[in-house]
C-alpha cells in the first residue's frame, strides 16, 4: 500500500493550550509515533514548529491560493470576535485570528474542533471577548462558520469536546480521517465512538448511584450525582471508559464531573452542587422518563444493601 502524506495545520485561538498538552499524554501510540505511523506532515503547530515567520506567512498564502493542500485543520481554543466584532482580542501578526481561521477552513479537507472552546465557545472569555465556537455558539448551530458549512470532505466541523479534549478521541479521530475509515458523527457532530456514551459509564461509583447512596460532603465516598453536582449521567464523554492519563478519572477520585463536554460548559449555575427540589435533582440522566426514574430511585434507595450504607471501602 502506498503511503500518502497527510498535511495538518494546528491553530491555537482563544484558549489555554490544554488540548495540546492533553494530546501529549497520548499513549500507544504517543504523539511522535502517531505522526510517523500516519505519515502526517505537520505544516504548523505553534508548539512544535520551527518555521520562520516569513515562511509561515508564505504557508498561509499558499494554502489560501490552493498551492498547498491542507488535509486536516485542527483548531484549539475559542474564536474571539471582540471587541465589538473586530476580532482584535486575538490576533496573529496584526490579523484577527478569526479571519485566518475562516480562510483556512475554506480550503481544508477536514476541520476538527479540538476541545469545548473550539466546538462551542467553552470558557472562552468575558463579554468583551465575544467568544464563540467554530460551528456552534453554545447550543445553537452557527458559530464563526455557518450552521450549513461543510468542508471539502462534505462533513461539517468535527467536534471533539472536552475541557480538555481526551487524547484518545483526538488520536482516534485523526487516525480514522487519515485512513479513510468510518467515523460516525452523533450529537453535535461529535464522533459516536467517544461521545456516544455517558461519562457515568464505567465510573467505579456506579453501585452507589444504583442504590442512591449519596455523597453529601467531600471525601465521603458515595454517588456525587444527587448533591455534589456531578454531571456523569447527564453528559457524553469517554472519561470512565478511556481513563485519564491511563490511570483514573475525576469521578473515581471524588471530583464531580462538571459536564465539560456539554455545549453550555461552563454552566451558569454553581458547580459542586446539584440543582434539586426537595432532594430530587432537576436534571435527570439524559433521556429518562422522569416519573419512572423517580419511582425507580425511590425503590432502589429503599433496597440499598447495608454493606453499601455502612461501607468501609476507600473507593
Amino acid at each position, binding site marked *: 500500500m502506498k503511503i500518502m502524506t497527510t498535511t495538518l495545520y494546528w491553530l491555537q485561538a482563544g484558549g*489555554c493550550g490544554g488540548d495540546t498538552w492533553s494530546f501529549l499524554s497520548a499513549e500507544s501510540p504517543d504523539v511522535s509515533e502517531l505522526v510517523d505511523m500516519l505519515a502526517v506532515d505537520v505544516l504548523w503547530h505553534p508548539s512544535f514548529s520551527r518555521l520562520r515567520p516569513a515562511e509561515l506567512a508564505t504557508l498561509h498564502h499558499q494554502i489560501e491560493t490552493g498551492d498547498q493542500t491542507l488535509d486536516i485543520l485542527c483548531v484549539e481554543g475559542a474564536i474571539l470576535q471582540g471587541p465589538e466584532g473586530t476580532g482584535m482580542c486575538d490576533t496573529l501578526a496584526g490579523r484577527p485570528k478569526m479571519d485566518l481561521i475562516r480562510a483556512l477552513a475554506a480550503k481544508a479537507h477536514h476541520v476538527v474542533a479540538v476541545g469545548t472552546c473550539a466546538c462551542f465557545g467553552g470558557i472562552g472569555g468575558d463579554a468583551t471577548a465575544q467568544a464563540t465556537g467554530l460551528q456552534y455558539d453554545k447550543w445553537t448551530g452557527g458559530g464563526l462558520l455557518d450552521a450549513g458549512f461543510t468542508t471539502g470532505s462534505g462533513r461539517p466541523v468535527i467536534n471533539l469536546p472536552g*475541557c480538555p479534549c481526551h487524547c484518545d478521541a483526538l488520536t482516534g479521530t485523526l487516525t480514522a480521517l487519515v485512513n479513510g475509515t468510518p467515523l460516525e458523527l452523533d450529537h453535535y457532530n461529535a464522533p459516536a465512538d467517544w461521545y456516544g456514551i455517558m461519562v457515568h459509564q464505567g465510573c467505579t461509583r456506579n453501585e452507589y448511584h444504583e442504590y442512591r447512596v449519596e455523597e453529601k460532603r467531600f471525601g465521603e465516598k458515595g454517588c456525587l450525582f444527587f448533591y455534589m453536582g456531578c454531571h456523569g449521567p447527564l453528559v457524553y464523554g469517554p472519561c470512565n471508559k478511556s481513563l485519564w492519563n491511563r490511570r483514573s478519572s475525576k469521578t473515581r477520585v471524588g471530583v464531580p464531573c462538571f459536564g465539560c463536554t456539554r455545549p453550555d460548559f461552563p454552566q451558569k449555575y454553581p*458547580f459542586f452542587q446539584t440543582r434539586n427540589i426537595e432532594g430530587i435533582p432537576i436534571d435527570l440522566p439524559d433521556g429518562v422518563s422522569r416519573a419512572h426514574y423517580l419511582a425507580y430511585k425511590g425503590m432502589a434507595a429503599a433496597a440499598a444493601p447495608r454493606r453499601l450504607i455502612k461501607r468501609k471501602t476507600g473507593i
Partner: protein
Amino acid sequence: MSAKKIQILPLNRVEGDLELHLELRDGAVYEVRSVGTMYRGIENILKGRAPLDSLVITPRICGICSTAHLKAAAKALDMVFGVDVPDNARRVRNVTLMAEQLQNDLRHSFLLFCPDFTHAAHARQPLHAEAVQRYLPLKGTTARQVIQQTKTLLEIVAVLGGQWPHSSFMVPGGVVSVAGVNEINQCRSLLRNFRRWYEHRILGCPLERWLDVKNRTNLFRWLEEKPAHHDSDLGFFIRFCAAAGLIRPTGGYRNFLSYGAFEMPRQTAVKRINGGKTLLPGGFVNDGVPATFNQEKIGEDIACARFTGYTGSRHPFNGLTRPLAATEDDVKYSWAKAPRYHNLPAETGPLAERVVAADPLFIDLVTPDGPSVFSRQLARLVRPAQILPVMDTWLQEIGHSPEGFFTNYAKVTDGQGFGLVQAHRGALGHWLQIENGRIAHYQIITPTAWNASPRDGAGRRGPWEQALVGTHIDNPAQPIEAEHIVRSFDPCLVCAVHTVAT
C-alpha cells in the same frame, strides 16, 4: 548610525499571545515593547459566580500549569473560610504541584527552548548537527524521550487527582481524594522510574553528585569529570551555551521575587531550604539585598496596558479589569498589566526561587553582572534534582500519617483571601472577595505578567523588556539572540517566534 525596527511575534500563548517590537541602533536593541495580544477576561467571568466555581474556572486559564492555579484558588478559599488543611492534604497538594512542575521544566527545556539550538542562525556551530539530532521537534532523540517520560509524571496527578490537566481535586480544607496504599505505590514507582531516567539521560549522574555543584568552578569541573556528564543533555546544554555566548549576562534588572513554595506538613522528615515557613522561602531580592516578602506591597499599574478605570498602581484587592475598546493606542500597548513590588519590576521563576533561597551556585552565577540566558534556563533544568527526593518522602509519609485529607468547613462565608504559590514560571497569586455568598471580586497575577509586563507609569520597562535592551542582534531577519532571552523566562507561550523586519 543605522536604525532598524523589527517585530518578533511569538505566536504561541498559553497565558496570552505575545509580540515584541524592537528598535535597533548600530545592531543592538535600543528600544523594546512587549505586547500581550490576547484578551479573555477570566476575572470578569468569575464575578457573581459561586465561590467554589473558581476551582473549576481558574485552572482553565493555563493548560500547562492548571494545578498551580487550582492550588492558588483553593488557598484563597482556605483563607476566607478559615479552615486548616490537614497534613496529608498538604502532601497531596504539594506532590501533585511538584509533578506538574517537573513536567513543565522538562517540556519547556527540551521541547520549547532547546529547539532554538537547531535554528539556522546556529548552523555554523560545531554542535549544531548534534542539536538537530537531539531536539528536532517530535523527531529528536531527546524530544521523543521527553514526550514519553513527562506524561508518566502526569499519571501521578491523575492517580491523586483524577486527571491532568484541569482537575479540581483541591477544595477548601484539603483534597477530595483519599490515597490508599496502592495509589501511593503507583506514584512512588512512577517517580522512581522517572528519576532513573532523569539521572541517566538528563544529568548524567546521581542527583546527589549534581547537588554538590556549588559554584561556577565546580560546574565546569563537573562537566569534564566524566564522559557521562559531558554527553548528558545537561552537559550538552552547558557546552552549547558556552559556544553560543549564552553564558554572558544579558542586560536587565537584578530584582528577584518568590512567594515561597510548598507548605510544610506539621510532622515531616523534610527539611526547609534556607529557613522560611515553606519548603522554599519567599522573599524579594533587590540588587543583591534580600528583604522579607509582604503581599501588601504588590500593585498593578495600567499606564501602558489596554485597561482603564484607574491611574497609578492598585493592590489586587482593589484592582480592576476593565478593557479598552478596539482602537490601537500608542501609549497603552499591551493586554498585560504591569505588576510591581514596592513599585519595582521584578523577575520571577526558577532562577528567582534559587536567588531568594540564597543557593550558592546561582548566587555565584548571577553575581556581579546579573542573569543570563544560561543561568535562567539552568535553574529550570536542574530544579527536579532538589524536588524529586522531597516528593518521595512526602508520598511515603502519607501512608504513615494519622491526619486525613479534608477538614470540613462550617459553611461558605463572606470575606476576603488570597492564595499565593510558586507556579512553575514563578510567583502566582489569586485575590478573592466573597460578598453575599458570591464572588464579588477576583484578581489574578500570573508569573508571565511579572516577567512580560509593559512599562509602568514611571516609564520603567518590564523585566524581559529591560533584559533585551542592549542585546546585539547579528541578523535582524533572524533575531535569535532576542528569542533566546525571552524563551529563557519560559513565557508560557510556547516556542514559535515570528519575525517581520520593517
